[in-house]
Every structure is written in structure tokens, then in C-alpha cells.
């Protein structure tokens, strides 16, 4: 009986909202400097028929799942994290994509067959040069060492990347991090390391917050998305310095929502994932393209980052620069899709108790 009521209820909503004709597409991303770079790189240059409306969201698949289940899909193309790309594709929230045009050009293979490549971004530790007039923190061990470098640390409110960084700070090799994490003792070890800074952390959840925390002196070091740090340094002239150690490299993809304007969405996604589009995006934000040929375009075109009064070399700010990669952890979205829920609960317990 309830099933029936539910079906009629959802059906009614669906009827009420699907009465649209050939439609513009709604592109949903994270806002700020990042969306701005997407706007300039491939939304402004998109001329095929449909217009593009840009919206912001805060990640997560909840809203998308709600739209798909209610049959009222108002988002067409969404910018997602890799573990969400996996889960969403599994759950049938995303449309399948023809990947033949780029699959051999990617730095790492795509996480699912619902995605087109975007960028590599990274969780990176950073500080303001003015906070450390003397000795400066050099690696992730210093980030976790509150005796050597007293002061608060800004960290994000979820477990991703923190576990990896804690383990590297505890002496695990960056390349071995996921082997250690796959054992229960490994996770214990990471939490034990996190315990050492627990009384010295300030949590953030919005990407602009860590920059604010460091700028205002509320914390002396913080973790942040590297592109935000880069944008603050390159565009606003902030005196931030990266700690390029145990940088956790994450992937970012575009997906088309099932039941939205799929045809237009897929066309748009093909346009937004060309080597040129990805390279152009780096003119406005220092994230690393996921296509090999985009990196070549940038190399040839340096100085690449667009700034008033002279452009700047972008490659040194990229999380995929060779010297950064050598000491980086490449995040494993499959591990997180598998263990994310369990570790998150434990992280929640750690935070709250």
C-alpha cells in the first residue's frame, strides 16, 4: 500500500516537472575560483545550441539521488569526486559515456564508465610565511609536530586524505599508504597519529575557510585544496607557502545525470573534456589536467596562468609537477568507496569524543 502511495506521489511530482522541451543544460560545480575557471575554459566557448546555467553545490550524491528517484532531474552535468563517481555510477544515477576519445590519453584510467576527465587536485598543507619568521615547516611530519612548530592546525571535517597524511607523518612510505590502510592496525596507527594534534586543530568544511584561517592567524598551518592556495598566491599575492609533502592527489570528473537532458549533457561533456579545454582551464586555476596531451599544450604555451601585468608559469603550482608527484600519495577512490563509510564513522567518533 505504501509502495503504491509512494509511486503515485513520485509520479505526480515527475509529471509536474518534466513538461519541458528542448532544454538548456544545468551545470553544477563547486563554485568560487574553480567554477570560474570552468566558465572561462569551456562554458563561454560552448556555442552548440543549448545554453548553460551554472549552479553550485557542496558535493555529495544526496541531492542527485533525490532528483533521480523523484523523476525530477534538474541537474544535467555535475562535477564529482572520484569515489562519488564510482558510487553514483553503481547506483545508476549517471548516464554511461563513450570514453573512446580520451581513454588512451589519460594519466590514470577513469574510475568508472560514467565519467569524462577533468583535473587532478590535491589536499596540500600550507602556511603563511609571516607565521614562521625563523625555521619553516618542510614536510608533513612538521605539520603533525606541535612541539617543533607550536600553534593550531586547520584540517577538514572528513577523513579522506587525513588518514593518508597521518600515516606518512608516522613514517609510512607514500607509495605504501594504501597497503597499510587495508589492515585494521593501519587505521589504528593513523588515528593514533591524529591524536597527537587533536587538541590543536580547527576544522573547516568550505574550501575558502582554510585560507581565511591562515590569513587571520587563527591557525599557523592548514590543509587546503591546492588550487585555492595557488589562486590566492597567484591572483591575490598572498604570502602562502606550500608544503609539498604527502600531498594527496585526487581526481575530479564530470558526469551526466540519468533522466536529465542527457543528449545535450553528453555533447557538452565531450566539449568540456578535450585536451585544449583542460589545458585552458589551467590558465585560471592551478589544477593538473588529467589528459597527457593537455600537459604538453601547457608546456609549450608557458607562461600559461593569466594575470594582469604579465602571465606566470603555472607548472610549478600544479600538484602533478614531477617533484611534487615524487612525494605525493595518489588517492585510491576504490579504497574509499569500499571503506569510506566505516572510516568516516570512526573519524566522527574521534572528532566528537
Amino acid at each position, binding site marked *: 500500500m*505504501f509502495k503504491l*502511495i*509512494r509511486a503515485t*506521489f513520485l509520479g505526480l511530482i515527475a509529471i509536474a516537472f518534466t513538461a519541458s522541451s528542448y532544454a538548456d543544460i544545468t551545470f553544477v560545480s563547486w563554485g568560487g575560483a574553480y567554477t570560474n575557471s570552468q566558465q572561462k575554459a569551456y562554458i563561454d566557448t560552448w556555442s552548440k545550441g543549448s545554453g548553460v546555467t551554472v549552479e553550485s553545490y*557542496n*558535493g*555529495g*550524491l*544526496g*541531492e542527485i*539521488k533525490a532528483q533521480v528517484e523523484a523523476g525530477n532531474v534538474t541537474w544535467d552535468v555535475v562535477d564529482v569526486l572520484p569515489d562519488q563517481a564510482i*558510487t553514483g*555510477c*553503481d*547506483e*545508476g544515477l549517471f548516464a554511461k559515456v563513450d570514453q573512446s576519445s580520451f581513454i588512451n590519453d589519460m594519466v590514470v584510467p577513469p574510475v568508472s564508465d560514467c565519467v569524462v576527465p577533468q583535473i587532478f587536485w590535491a589536499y596540500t598543507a600550507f602556511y603563511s610565511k609571516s607565521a614562521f619568521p625563523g625555521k619553516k615547516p618542510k614536510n608533513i611530519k612538521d605539520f603533525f609536530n606541535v612541539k617543533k612548530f607550536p600553534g*593550531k592546525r586547520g584540517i577538514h571535517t*572528513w577523513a579522506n586524505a587525513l588518514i593518508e597524511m597521518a600515516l606518512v607523518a608516522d613514517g609510512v612510505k607514500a607509495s605504501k599508504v594504501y597497503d597499510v590502510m587495508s589492515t585494521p592496525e593501519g587505521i589504528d596507527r593513523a*588515528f593514533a597519529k591524529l591524536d597527537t594534534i*587533536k587538541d590543536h*586543530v*580547527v*576544522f573547516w*568544511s568550505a574550501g575558502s575557510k582554510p585560507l581565511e584561517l591562515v590569513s*587571520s*592567524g*587563527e591557525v599557523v598551518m592548514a590543509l587546503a585544496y591546492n588550487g585555492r592556495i595557488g589562486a590566492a598566491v597567484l591572483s591575490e599575492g598572498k604570502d602562502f607557502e606550500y608544503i609539498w609533502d604527502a600531498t594527496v592527489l585526487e581526481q575530479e570528473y564530470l558526469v551526466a545525470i540519468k533522466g536529465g537532458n542527457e543528449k545535450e549533457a553528453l555533447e557538452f561533456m565531450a566539449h568540456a573534456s578535450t585536451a585544449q579545454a583542460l589545458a585552458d582551464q589551467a590558465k585560471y586555476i592551478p589544477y593538473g589536467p588529467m589528459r597527457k596531451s593537455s600537459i604538453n599544450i601547457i608546456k609549450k604555451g608557458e607562461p600559461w596562468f593569466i594575470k594582469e601585468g604579465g602571465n606566470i608559469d603555472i607548472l610549478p603550482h600544479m600538484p602533478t609537477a614531477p617533484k611534487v608527484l615524487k612525494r605525493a600519495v595518489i588517492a585510491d577512490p*576504490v*579504497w574509499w*568507496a*569500499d*571503506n*569510506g*563509510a*566505516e572510516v*568516516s*564513522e*570512526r573519524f*566522527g*567518533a*574521534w*572528532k*566528537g*569524543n
Partner: protein
Amino acid sequence: MNEKTAGSILTTEGIPLKVSLQKAERRNKIRAILLVAPLLLFILFTFLIPIGDMLLRSVDDSYINTVFPKTFKEYKKWDRQGLPSEELYKTMFFEVKEGSGRSIGKATTRMNYAKSGWKSLLKKSKRKFKKIEEGPYKEQMIAIDKRWADIEYWKALGVMVDPTTAGYYLNAVDLKYNVDKEVVRQKENRRIYNHTWVKTFKVSILVMIFCLMLGYPISYLLSTLPLKYSNLLMICVLLPFWTSLLVRTVAWMVMLQQKGVFNNLLVMSNIIADENRFKLMYNETATIIVMTQILLPFMVLPLYSVMKTISPNYMRAALNLGASPLHAFWKIYMPNSVPGISAGCMLVFILAIGYYITPELVGGKDGQMIGNWIAYHLKTTLNWGLSAALGAILLGVLTVLYWVYNKLVGIENIKLG
């Protein structure tokens, strides 16, 4: 008019008065129902059905049964001692191999709640099963991934065999089914919800008490001042009320953080040392302070409207009859203002207990409430069953509190004006 005489009286059209009256009455009733029908429908569709749906989700575990019906049938024969038989491996093999990618994918999300790892195991297996043409399947499956030989994975399936589950409710109070489907406590380092429940109530009650302590004198002042002053003061109460919640919350962040206005002032005036700045932001204290400020108007407004109706003559009479001011207040004014106190406390408490955005922004590591976890599971883990169970418990607790309140104070004592 009594029954007998009413029967014999006729209207001018010759219809018995009783019938005519009944007709008119019925017309009125229909009109009344039609008038409230939009509201009823609205409540039905936006309130009752979604809540019903939520309650259903919190116990529903049927989807996975539609994906692996044969496996689960076979599963019930397994003695749960050693590894399952070839037969069970075989049914699992075919249901994974032949199932649609989408249904398997959706099922793995559910299976992962029971045991982390199912997702990648099935995904990998589904890809590799295509190459396997004939049995025996057991060895070949184990050769693909040694997790197929891990009895814990098989045992974990047991908690999903029934189409309904209490598992989400157990999760919501830090219990769980172990692999043998006995109720056990959650592992110590994953216990979060009981702790959060207690904190949610603690914070809500404290916020309610602080609102009452701050709101009562303000309302008293508002209701006794001459109109031209009280209007001005009322604006002061309402202005923040009209300001966006986010703006107010962020303003508090600027005020209270360690390098913020409040601490800076104290340091500048040498009241505290630079290294002893108060920690007022990103913790439970922050949650309580900010929520109190945000919810204060919900206390002041009902209190004010009730106090406005208390005639000053009562107090004068009490004083005249020799009561001390305190005594008069306690015996006369207070009891008269109880409906306002009740209404204000109920409003503030109910709003506080489901609060989400303020704790999220200012709560830091120990100021998070249950609403934050509901949102987290809705948005990030997609574990809507658990979200629904947490929500249902919240609803249940509120209903019980309401009932207790009704028994103690009486709901008819609530007054908003």
C-alpha cells in the same frame, strides 16, 4: 427545544425543520471541508507521506532480496560453520554474472554497510566472471579474489536475508548485528550516535534555559514599557530575527574566534594575556552561544504576547494586600506567564533539537548535533536508511516529550498570544 416538539415543527416550505436544519448543516460542513481541503492535501503530500516514506525506509531492506533471490534462498540452507557449499557459490556466481550492472551496483552499496569491502569485491568479480565458462565455481571465484574464501563476508550476508531490518535503528544507537545476527554493541571506536544524542539534548536544553533566562526579563520590560519605547525595543528584537541565519552565524564567528573582536578587546584592555585567549569558537560553547542568540526571538515573542495580556492591576492588588514584590511576582505574575513560558520553551527546544547549519559552521569537533549526522548520511554516504532511522528516533522522542509535557502542563496551556 426538545426532540419531540422539534419533529413536528415545519418550515414555511412545509419541510420539517429538523430536515431543513440538517441540510443546511451538511452544506456548511461540505463548505468547511472544501475550504480546508487544500491545506489537508498539502499536509498529506508534504508532511504525512514523506514521513511515512521515511519510516518505511528506516526498516526497508527488500531491494537486495530482489537482486539475489536465489542466493538468499540457498543461503538459508547454509549451516554457517565452514565455507559455503559449491552450490551457494554457483548461485551467487550466476546472479552476479547475469545481473544488470546497475542492480548489482546498487546492491553492493547496501552490502558494504554490512561489511566494508563487498563493493570492490563484487565489482572486480563481475568484470572477471565473464571469462569463466564452467564450474567448479568455488575455486575459480577464490582464485579471482581471496576474499571469496573469507567466511566473514558470507556471514555478513546473513543480516540482509530478511526484507525488513532493524539494523538501521540499531546503528542509530551504537548497536549492530554481528555476523551471526545477534545484537551487539558497536566497536568502541565507532560509537558516535549515543554520545551525539546526549549532546543534542544537552545543547537543546541549555539553549532553552538560556533563552528563557535572557528572554524573560526582556519580554517583561517590553510589555511594561510605554508603547513608544517598547516599539523601539521590539525592533531591536526583530531586526536580528529578520537577518539571514547565515549572516548572523558568520558574524558570531568574527566576534568569537581566538583572534576575533571579543578576544582582541580583552587582550587590548589587559584583562587576559595574549596566550590565554578564550576558546569560544569551533566548539560546543560556540554552538550554545550562537544558537541561543538565534533562537531568542522565538522565546521573546510568545512571552511578550502573553505578558501583554496580564493586567498590571493583579500585581498592584497583590502589593496592596501586603505581599512583598518578590512574593507577588512569584505568586501572581509568574503563574500568569506560564502559558508564554511553555510556548517559548517548546518552540525553542523543538527548533534547537533539529538544528543543523549553526552547529555545522561553528560547532567544530565537539559541537556537532544529530542533525549533522542525518545530513551527512543523506548527502555523503547515501545511507538513507540510517538517516531515516535517526530522523524517526528524533520524531519519536519529540512525540514522547510532547506527551509528557501534555500530561504535566497540559497542551491547552500553551499560548502564543
